[in-house]
């Protein structure tokens, strides 16, 4: 049967009207439903591939426990939260397009855990431009006086870390030390301060080595170090480099005391070096100089409890228990959630300026250690100061917090604080 043009037009119009009628309510209702039940996303923007592929799981070990305790307390402003792992791919050339894709792909993104020393300089400006808070683990000195209002850093910068390592050498009674740092950006963040600090506190620097990372052998370097007879080595290098260097040091028969930084508390580093020199040698020689975290604090207990309960999302969760980066990432997510509660808004551009209001001390503020306690106090109209698993987190005007330092040793399956470094001791090394 021939269908006239007019009939076809009428039929098509009727069809379109019918379809619109069916879709419109669904659109409206789904949009409304989206608004009331939409999940807020925290991106874990770290390396999940390449040589630093452990950074992603490390950050996830902070994010997922936070996700758990926030959702257990009813979420943020009625919204559940979720952590979204996103591979930063290990170098700035890949991290930049990945960050742009992340920003463009979702309107539910409210905060980011990201920006390691390998890519922070490249990606922080992107999240700054997008108006999304990014809590970074980079220690680079270039961020010590950052003007990026959406950049936040809980852990101490590398410059303070380096000074703390030299102060620790003095506190431990060493008078002749050597410094061995990898030539990558992460290790070189601490190196200048450590070397300067050794001189400032009048220790004898018997050898100062900057080693090319990822080499097949460091035998010549190791022999030069051994001939200088240091009592202790202040060191930071990636797991592979450290394993090769220390294994060749052990072969020459002498592993002096090691003064290391939080990198040495990462499971990957310990696995690599233990494989190279043995657990008993490492545990008996290593002193880790790390941000002071009171292990018996309520916040830390809340973190470890949530971490253990997150085993489905965080494989082998206990390996991250003492990892300062995981702990800092946990605090980061809780802080962002509390800031949203205080701001009564999940919009990053609104709640960003409330971050210091929930962390820095203020008159009459109630000190809270968990998200639930903080949410409850805010609901009662109180001001709060969140003191997290990393301890008190007080941001300066460049959005850097930093804490005191402690010297820890690994014994009986756990890290134990053997000494704290006072502000005066660290200041003497700066």
């Amino acid at each position, binding site marked *: 049967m021939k269908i006239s043009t007019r009939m076809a037009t009428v039929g098509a119009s009727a069809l379109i009207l019918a379809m619109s009628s069916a879709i419109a309510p669904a659109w409206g209702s789904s949009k409304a439903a989206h608004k009331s039940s939409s999940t807020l996303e925290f991106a874990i923007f770290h390396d999940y*591939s*390449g*040589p*630093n*592929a*452990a950074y*992603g*799981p490390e950050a996830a070990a902070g994010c997922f426990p936070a996700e758990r305790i926030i959702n257990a307390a009813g979420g943020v402003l009625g919204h559940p939260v979720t952590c979204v792992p996103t591979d930063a791919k290990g170098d700035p050339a890949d991290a930049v397009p990945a960050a742009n894709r992340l920003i463009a792909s979702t309107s539910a993104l409210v905060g980011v855990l990201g920006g390691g020393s390998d890519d922070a300089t490249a990606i922080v400006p992107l999240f700054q431009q997008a108006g999304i808070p990014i809590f970074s683990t980079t220690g680079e000195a270039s961020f010590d006086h950052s003007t990026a209002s959406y950049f936040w850093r809980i852990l101490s910068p590398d410059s303070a870390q380096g000074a703390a390592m030299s102060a620790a050498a003095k506190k431990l009674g060493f008078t002749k030390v050597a410094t061995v740092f990898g*030539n990558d950006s992460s290790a070189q963040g601490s190196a200048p301060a450590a070397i300067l600090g050794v001189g400032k506190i009048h220790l004898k620097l018997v050898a100062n*080595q*900057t*080693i*090319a990372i*990822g*080499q*097949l*052998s*460091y*035998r*010549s*370097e190791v*022999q*030069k170090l051994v001939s200088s007879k240091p009592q202790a080595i202040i060191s930071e290098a990636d*797991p*592979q480099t450290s*394993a*090769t260097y*220390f*294994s*060749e040091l*052990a*072969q*020459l*028969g002498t592993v002096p005391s090691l003064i290391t930084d939080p990198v040495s508390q990462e*499971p*990957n580093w310990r*696995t*690599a*070096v*233990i*494989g*190279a*020199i*043995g657990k008993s040698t490492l545990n008996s020689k290593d002193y880790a100089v790390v941000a002071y975290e009171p292990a018996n604090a309520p916040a830390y207990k809340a973190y470890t409890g949530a971490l253990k309960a997150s085993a489905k999302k965080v494989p082998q969760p206990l390996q991250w228990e003492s990892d300062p980066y995981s702990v800092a990432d946990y605090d980061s997510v809780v802080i962002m959630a509390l800031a949203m509660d205080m701001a009564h808004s999940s919009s990053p551009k609104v709640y960003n300026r409330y971050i210091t209001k929930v962390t820095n001390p203020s008159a009459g503020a109630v000190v809270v250690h968990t998200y639930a306690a903080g949410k409850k106090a805010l609901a009662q109209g109180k001001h709060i100061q969140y003191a997290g698993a990393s301890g008190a987190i007080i941001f300066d005007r460049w959005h850097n917090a930093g804490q005191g330092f402690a010297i820890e040793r690994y014994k009986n399956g756990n890290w134990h604080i053997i000494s704290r470094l006072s502000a005066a001791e660290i200041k003497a090394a700066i």
Partner: protein
Amino acid sequence: MSEFASAIGFGIVTAAILAVSSVGFTLQFSVTNVFNLSYGSVMTATGFIAYGLNNAGLNIWSSMAIAALGGGVISVLMNWLIFSRFIRHGLSRFGMVIVTIATGLICDNTIQAVVGPSFYSYNVPLERVHDIGGMLLTTQELIVIAIAIVLMTLTHVGLKYTRLGTAMRGLSVNSSLARASGVPTRRVVAAAWFASGVMAGIGAVALFLDTGAFGATTGSSFLIIVIAAAVLGGVGSAEGAVVGALVVGISTEIAAAYWNAELKNVVAFLILIVVLLVRPQGIFSQLSSERTAVG
């Protein structure tokens, strides 16, 4: 003087590890004309095979031998399943390089998905050094040097005095003429891939013993220095790869001992550039530039 002797000794150990890997790389290229940038991934895979065997209780040297055979099989399969198909379709040399890069990336990421981002170590006792004429070497290192010497000798003898070796050399010079002369090309090519994979396996275990710990990307991260040694000596020349490995190994250790440890690789690559400027084909290579890929 003893520092110099030590540096030479250390350089020889490095050279031994590099030589095995570089000869495997260059041997396969000389026969097939495929610049295989997935070679590092084969090293990693075989290193993990050895890890599995060693972890199950086998001593490291037996694990190395079995893993090396596994490396041979992996290499043959890679060529049969992937590379030869592209070669038969007439893909350009540059295109083949891209295919090998892609294959390597797939392998590396697959290995990482299986083993995770952690680091692993072989179950070997920690050894002390022996002072041999001023050179400080462990028993393990002496064994690696011995393995390298035996392997290089066998390679040289095999290439020069066996029918298979003669066929390989014929293919490397002129594949069309070799084919026309009745050389069973496919079998010879398969043998080249197998030999390359075996040497990748031995080189990998020696390398991972040396570094103390290894991960999913360790083999690929050392590929550039393996290729540098092969190119320096002349790609396609087994003897050249040995000389290249010695130059790279010793120069890096001398640079670290007497100059700046941070710049040890700079010295090695500067030497590479100077040699290639003077002799672009490398020290020993006599390969024709008009060769095509053989699958």
